[in-house]
């Protein structure tokens, strides 16, 4: 039994087979990267893991448990958090509020007590705040703590979204193109953080990424996808030099 397994996963949109019989497995503590040209079906796999889409066929297993049918709002409780390709932050709220929302699954206080806001609620809030501040320190976001997201630049938002996922304290973190839209310096930082997330926080990472320097730097294993099908799997070097992968990227560029 692997830590996280995708088995024969398929999904069509109308006539388009977005994901076509994909299999892979990753182990605890790994950074596992999916690469492939645009439209290969990478984000669709993430959206099936998040239960936003139900697969036509196949299974998703996490620590031996079949989570294919789990509700979308149960995935975080199971231990899986994610970021989005196009950043889905709560725009009108501050950075601090965004990260506090990431603590949702750790909230145990019943609604009625929240309305009264008794001292127990305050204690719980302070506890969440301390966890959030750890993440703010970790990602060096203190400068923006009370800024509204709508006023912040893209690179910072990308970091905040990563931070919000970390506030969930997941066992598995899904990152959908964490470096897209970042400049080379920010991309390098992202690489360090992913390493720290793996090594210091002990969180396994399943990542979609185009930036090959980042993929080479952090990935333990790489899977290449094209037209919904797996075309190669192995180390970053092996996958990059695989003739089908080269062809897929050249074909995709044409």
């Amino acid at each position: 039994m692997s830590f996280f397994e995708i088995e024969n996963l398929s999904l069509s949109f109308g006539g388009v087979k977005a994901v076509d019989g994909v299999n892979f497995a990753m182990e605890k503590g790994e950074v596992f990267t999916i690469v492939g040209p645009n439209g290969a079906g990478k984000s669709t796999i993430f959206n099936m893991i998040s239960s936003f889409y139900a697969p036509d066929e196949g299974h998703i297993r996490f620590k031996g448990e079949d989570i294919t049918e789990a509700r979308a709002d149960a995935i975080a409780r199971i231990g899986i958090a994610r970021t989005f390709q196009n950043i889905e932050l709560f725009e009108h709220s501050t950075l601090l509020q965004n990260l506090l929302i990431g603590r949702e699954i750790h909230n145990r206080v019943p609604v009625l007590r929240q309305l009264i806001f008794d001292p127990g609620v305050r204690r719980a809030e302070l506890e969440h705040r301390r966890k959030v501040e750890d993440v703010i320190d970790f990602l060096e976001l203190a400068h923006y703590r009370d800024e509204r997201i709508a006023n912040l630049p893209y690179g910072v938002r990308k970091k905040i979204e990563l931070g919000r996922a970390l506030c969930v304290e997941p066992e598995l973190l899904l990152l959908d193109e964490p470096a897209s839209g970042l400049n080379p310096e920010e991309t390098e930082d992202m690489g360090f953080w992913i390493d720290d997330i793996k090594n210091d926080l002990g969180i396994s990472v399943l990542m979609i990424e185009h930036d090959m320097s980042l993929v080479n730097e952090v990935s333990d294993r790489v899977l290449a996808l094209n037209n919904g099908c797996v075309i190669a799997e192995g180390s970053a070097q092996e996958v990059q030099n695989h003739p089908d992968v080269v062809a897929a990227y050249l074909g995709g560029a044409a």
Partner: protein
Amino acid sequence: MRVLFKTDYNQDIKFAKHSGYVFWYGLLLAGVFLAPMALDTYWINELTRVLIYALAGLGLMVVTGFTGQVSLGHAAFMAIGAYTHAFLLTQGVPFFVSLPIAALTSGVVGLLIAIPASRMTGLYLTIASLAFAIVVEDVVIHWEGVTGGNRGMAVDPPMLFGYEIFEAWEYYYIVLVLLIMSIILVLNVLRSPLGRSMLAVRDSEISAESLGIRVARTKVLAFLISAALTGLAGGLFAHFIQFLSPETFGILLSIQLLLMIVVGGLGTVHGAIYGAVLIGFLEATISIMKDWLPPAIGNQPGLEPGLFGVILVLFIIFEPEGVYGRWLKFRTFLENFPFYRRNTFKRQRSYLKTERMR
């Protein structure tokens, strides 16, 4: 320019974030508590009306401003609160028992309609809320045994522990205290996980879900709290107007409530209060203007809703953050003078939303 040094996480939880809050809100509180001593009955009544609107608007704010579900039927919750309260009073139930029951009844109705409505989004939900309001109006007309139907229903002044509340200033204080309690309740929601979930659901349902927020449950709870507060306002309104009839709680009132929170500033408690003050002021102005205008215009039946509609549209186009948003910008300008950057509040639109799901 004020630079805040934060030394304690409690500072972000407390209502009064710094000494300026204590001073200005203390002044405001003193003002509203002392107001009846300086005003005559007419103006005390006008103020009471504003407080009741503020309470109803606060309710609508929870559902529309915090959770992003636009309701065009909130007058119906005022109707449910008002008629339930008035009916219970005729059955001999005491004021301070009947009022919470009325609020709760309205809240439970809100909860029941929210269960199917929370699956709808945007325009569909708004249309459903409108339909709901029409149904409630119909029920009020036809359930004559309880509501008096089209003949209407008189409401007696409240009796408190055998003492009849007859004076305008006495009722003003009852309304004021209940409004303050409701504001505290809503502020508590906002600083709790529930309030954060509401804002999350409003801004991005999919990322809310991916963080474990139960979207439907959050919307239903918002409706429950919202309908209860607006129902409470309805119960208080019943004594204020002293006579209930079905057309009191029509579409015009619903539009007025929506106008209030949009003009005041969506998504904040301030917005509901500012909106109520402005609408109260507007209503008074319109009724004065009516005497000045030539009768052909002044007596047009659609004058008020027409004006409200125009103002609503103007605000949505030019100042979507409402009067409170405008005030925040002005204050920032003053605090940073002469260093204000023109684009401080300009929203960044530098990224694509094209691949967003749903």
